[in-house]
């Protein structure tokens, strides 16, 4: 994983941890944890996440891309961002 990817991962992880799990304990979130199944994000959370990605990572999520396989875990997000950037 290159440096940008590491930074992106850290940024996303900290965003989810601090804003949805209300902790800085890194062990509370695995990169494979489903945001939906584990109840980490609700509808507002998903829209917030999309807004955050636009603002902090300049990633624009199109309506067709707003599906769980793109957005539902840290790993899904990282893969989605990589596809968008390639």
């Amino acid at each position, binding site marked *: 994983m290159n440096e940008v990817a590491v930074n992106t991962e850290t940024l996303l992880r900290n965003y989810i941890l601090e*804003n949805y799990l209300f902790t800085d304990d890194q062990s509370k979130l695995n990169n494979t944890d489903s945001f*939906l199944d584990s109840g980490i994000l*609700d509808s507002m959370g998903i829209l917030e996440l999309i807004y955050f990605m636009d603002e902090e990572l300049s990633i624009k999520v199109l309506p067709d891309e707003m599906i769980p396989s793109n957005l539902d875990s840290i790993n899904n997000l990282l893969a989605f961002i990589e596809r968008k950037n390639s």
Partner: protein
Amino acid sequence: MIMCGIAGVIQSSSRMKTQIKESVLSAMADKLLHRGPDASGVYCKAGVGLAHRRLSIIDLSNGQQPMHSPTGDISLVFNGEIFNYIELREALINKGHQFLTQSDTEVIIHMYQEYGLDFVQQLNGQFAIGLWDDNNRRFVLVRDRVGICPLYYTLENDCLIFASEIKALKPALKNRLEINREALDQIFTFWAPVSPQTFFKNIFEVSPGQLIVLENNKIEKYQYWDWQFSNRDFWTISEDQQAQALHELLVEATRIRLRADVPVGAYLSGGLDSSVLVAMIHHYTNVPLRTFSLNFSDDSFDEKKYQSLLIDHLQTKHSRLKVATEDIARNFKQSLYHTESPILRTAPVPMGLLSALVHNSQYKVVLTGEGADEVLGGYDIFKEAKVRHFWSVNPDSNLRPLLLKKLYPYLNLPDKGQAAYLKTFFGEALDEPDKICFSHLPRWTTTAKAKQFYSADLNDELSGKSLDVMLNSLPKQLKNMHRFNRAQYIESKSLMAGYLLSSQGDRMLSMNSVEGRFPFLDHNVIEYANRIPPKYKMKGLNEKNILKKSMARYLTEEIIYRHKQPYRAPDMTAMTGDCLSEELRDYLSPDELDKQGLFDSKKVGFLIKKADTGRSLSVSESQALIGILSTQVVIEQFIN
């Protein structure tokens, strides 16, 4: 006839009858001054003490309490209204009873003398009653059917201590109040404790529809009324006939609620229910229309457009109160002193401000539309349950859950993949559609997310059985009811009685010496409505269809068919950023949170940080923030 506050101390042991101190009773009554500023009274004798604060509404000169029978064997304190007291009085006179006053209080005494403990069955009204029967050495506490008038009690040192509000119990208590942590967990699940629990340990409410008898050193509890549903005999009566019958019952329920020797006003939200009430007053009585409404500086909560339609249509004399978002935090603490319970939404606060407007306009009584959604099937939770049940027949369908988007257009979900998201938010118990609380699980699950902020100590201490407590409180026959009626039952007994009529109802009215009256909660209306088949209450996804049908002739189509907007007040914006004063922030400081030990101060810190950065809080996060803050405030006000 009085809206007021009652209190008292009754010794339960027959051996040790000591004089109840008048100073204690006076101190109890003083805590209820806001409920009854016009007069006070105290009665005490060996083993019995009764106290009363009075707000005069009917028979202004002759309603002093405690009231006694001429022979002195019955003594009574009473808060509320018996709306059919005129008819009951006439019937009693025909049976040979003689009356000294025109008040409904005296009617209760005679009803008890005539019918014993069955007296309550014939009362149509809202009431909390404490009655001492000296001949039988019996004390009776009774509360109205649905829980409009509050009534609390505790047992301490062989005494039953009771009062309209918990704060009024304190002067008689030897022990200090303590938090009931299980009840806190229930509030953080259902918005209110499961009756008879309260936020305070060993303090109980007399449940709606309950009568408690203290006699021979024993306490017996009777459920004299409950919500019962049966649709069978109504299938042969046409929808039009049912709408007409409902109409007549509502007119009568409204008419008798206009009985008062002071002017009566009405709340007008702009929604269907209050519009129906105001229209009925207009068409069926000679009472000049005087209405009051709330408006918000934040347009997304405001209903001025619909209020104005009705005001123009019926030409009412109207007063508006515009509530700015910052007013909510400013009045938060004062409101909590009256709710006596943590709250998860700020909605009660503006209701307290509205009753101040009523009070300042020299009005003491308002009619209000609460109860229509529970009685006639108006809430989104009923629609939601209907859609979820339809969906549960084919849980893998991608199309069926899309009906939920019709209910919640603001969810703004993406076009693709939305079934997966909807399943996450509303798919709770889809595989168990016959579960008793199927309708309420999504709401309870969302609310319970606030528990992630509990401290480790609190988590260890809690049994985690709030859901079981709720389920055990529900009657067994619920499972044989139609699922729509089941949802109505749960809603009426939990959120309506525990929160809407209490924290958001009586408490916000009585804090400014105003009495609310609720025609939709007339038990004759409820009992009839409970027999109307669910398909007429909600036709497709058209809520309160039968009410609209029965009242369409009096209202404009724009009001009848408007999209339902539940009453809400700004939550998150009112409790974050500049609105949240330093004083309120102090309650959320790590020191204060750790001192109480209920919440994880670090997690709460992240929540406040998130709110302060201007990021939107989700519903459950906003509920958590308000719930945590209100818990801290109530503890300081009542325990520390």
